[in-house]
């Protein structure tokens, strides 16, 4: 029997949503300050409006005052799923008022894409966009990539941190306390922020030829998009704008850092390198990256698009890395990416679907699930081939020896299959609107895997249903289904429960 949620459930959810809105309102003061300093008064006013709306949501939510400010599992999941709807909704206000979007849905699309670190965009005339709005697009990557809830957890203690943490598709508990883990994640991110922006700025000045202030601007925005595997770029030609192999190399290092789990960051900080290489996830991602890179480069070679080895290796490596880490930067126009057929297409599309590591800022199925799925299949085959009495070892190494229990195997296979279904659903809608199979599949995997590479289907003139489908894919893909399913279940029990 379904139990209908009562007023206390609603108050608990509203209270935590309110707290998170306060945190986002505080973060939104950054673009307000940016716009004020830059003298961009039109966006300044729209940012003030956005802060006002976040603040009202925050005040109204926290005024709900539940009897006990503790979240149970379902409340936490509902809070996370709603947070990832409310923040892009309110965060899209400055976009909607900027005049660079045809309608509020387009603005919401970019806000959702930014927050979920996808990087697909329907923004028009990006090259004349205010710098503060460009900053806000990229700051959304940072907030989403690090996890808004992680941000909230870092700032306030309170009951229910664990469920919020898991709801945001993270399962690495580096420290026994979730709050300590959240603070460690922010410490790692801020250290990378300082180092990454500095490196990109220096490369921008010396190798790209940017003026220092502009190098800082580009460095900051590209850092947000690279480390959070987002994919937005300050200019319409993405990373191709800089025409610099050095800038691409510096960005590639940040993309790899972003696709690494924070558990792996912790191990490297503690100099536990040997254990890292034994991890199933590390081995899987190295294998899948090598495989997709070979596919991509052989495919590009077969197409004859690049004459020299350097060009072939540079373009192949950068785009496969961009796809596998879930970043979505490109150095070629989408019209050219659409010409990458055959193996090159396969390499990039598979890399996008596989994604980065679990508990990282990357999207996609994730390497740990891929590694475990292969292990399950291999164990099944071995079990069949060996004598009946033989016992097949179910152990694997991931931050220590672990046993692959049937429950874990079931969960891994279920989520992996859900990703496949998500990719096929988006492709189906694309095909229904007349897109070729390859393009529809590519764009769908890019949306569901939170990547952002595009072959041109995503633009301001795309059909509304396709746009909503991609937004849903970004949302589901980023939260890895569970929190969204919990929200649906919660709403269902509200309607049908007793």
């Amino acid at each position, binding site marked *: 029997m379904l139990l209908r949620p009562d007023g206390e459930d609603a108050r608990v959810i509203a209270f935590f949503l309110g707290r998170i809105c306060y945190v986002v309102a505080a973060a939104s003061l950054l673009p307000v300050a940016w716009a004020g300093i830059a003298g*961009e008064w039109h966006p300044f006013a729209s940012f003030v*409006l956005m802060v006002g709306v976040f603040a009202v949501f925050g*005040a109204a939510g926290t005024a709900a005052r539940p009897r006990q400010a503790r979240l149970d599992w379902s409340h936490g999941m509902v809070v996370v799923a709603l947070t990832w709807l409310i923040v892009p909704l309110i965060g899209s206000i400055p976009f909607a*008022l900027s005049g660079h979007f045809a309608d509020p849905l387009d603005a919401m699309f970019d806000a959702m894409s930014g927050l979920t670190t996808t990087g697909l965009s329907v923004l028009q005339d990006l090259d*004349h966009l205010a710098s503060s709005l460009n900053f806000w697009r990229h700051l959304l990557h940072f907030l989403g990539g690090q996890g808004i809830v992680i941000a909230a957890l870092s700032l306030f203690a309170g009951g229910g941190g664990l469920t919020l943490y898991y709801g945001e598709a993270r399962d690495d508990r580096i420290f026994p306390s979730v709050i300590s883990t959240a603070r460690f994640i922010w410490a790692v991110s801020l250290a990378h922020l300082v180092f990454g922006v500095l490196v990109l700025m220096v490369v921008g000045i010396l190798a790209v030829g940017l003026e220092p202030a502009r190098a800082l601007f580009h460095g900051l925005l590209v850092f947000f998009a690279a480390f959070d595997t987002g994919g937005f770029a300050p*200019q319409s030609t993405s990373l191709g704008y800089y025409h610099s192999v050095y800038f691409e190399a510096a960005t590639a290092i940040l993309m790899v850092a972003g696709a690494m789990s924070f558990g792996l960051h912790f191990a490297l900080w503690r100099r536990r390198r040997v254990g890292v290489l034994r991890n199933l996830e590390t081995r899987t991602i190295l294998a899948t990256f090598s495989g997709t890179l070979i596919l991509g480069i052989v495919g590009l070679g077969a197409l004859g698009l690049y004459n*020299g080895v350097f*060009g072939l290796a540079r373009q192949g490596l950068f785009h496969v890395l961009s796809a596998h880490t879930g970043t979505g930067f490109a150095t070629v126009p989408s*019209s050219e990416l659409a010409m990458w057929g055959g193996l090159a297409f396969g390499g990039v599309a598979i890399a996008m679907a596989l994604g980065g590591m679990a508990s990282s800022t990357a999207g996609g199925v994730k390497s740990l699930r891929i590694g475990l799925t292969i292990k399950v299949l291999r164990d099944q085959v071995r079990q069949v081939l060996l004598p009946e009495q033989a016992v097949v070892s179910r152990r694997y190494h991931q931050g220590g020896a672990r046993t692959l229990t049937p429950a874990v195997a079931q969960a891994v296979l279920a989520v992996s299959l859900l990703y496949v279904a998500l990719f096929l659903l988006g492709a189906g809608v694309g095909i229904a609107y007349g897109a070729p199979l390859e393009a529809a599949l590519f764009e769908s995997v890019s949306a569901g895997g939170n990547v952002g590479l595009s072959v041109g289907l995503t633009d301001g003139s795309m059909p509304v249903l396709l746009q909503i489908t991609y937004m849903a894919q970004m949302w589901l893909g980023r939260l890895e289904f569970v929190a969204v399913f919990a929200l649906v279940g919660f709403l269902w029990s509200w309607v049908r429960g007793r």
Partner: protein
Amino acid sequence: MIKRIALALVALVGSASPAFAVEVDVAVLLVDPAPLDGAEVTVEGELIGDFMRRDEWVWVQLNGDPYASEPLGEGGELVGPNLGIALRFPIAVFDAAAFESPGGYGVRGPVVRVTGEWRYHDEERGGESYLAVTSVEVLERERRFDAPLPVGVLLTGLGLIAVSGLIHAASRRRSASDAP
């Protein structure tokens, strides 16, 4: 003003586009770039973003979209994403044109007509595609435009912040009065 006109004339006279160059739109170079590889082409558009000086070249993006004549902030209409290609100027050619600033927020950049060799997937530059400019003609200089402060939006935002403060204060008062 006289200096600017003189500089524009120098750029015009010193860099008249060769008669044999193929006139193309930027869109053509994006959609079907390979057939023109190595050809002398002429394109028109707005210089946008940054003037990136390095070695003996200046790199800059040229947009050949409708925003080049009328950006959104200046009343232009939404017509899709930007269409841009990279230009590589020899420093002498670039400096002769005496550009002040590229396009961006509040600035419609200089609109130029450039001629040069279209290099598609240039092997020497690791597969990059760009136009190696040999001559430039300045069609229109930079133009600045303002976006006015929307006072209504600002006041609404400030009003909402005040409302949130009132709700918060009321909530705290209620908490204090409920406390045993």
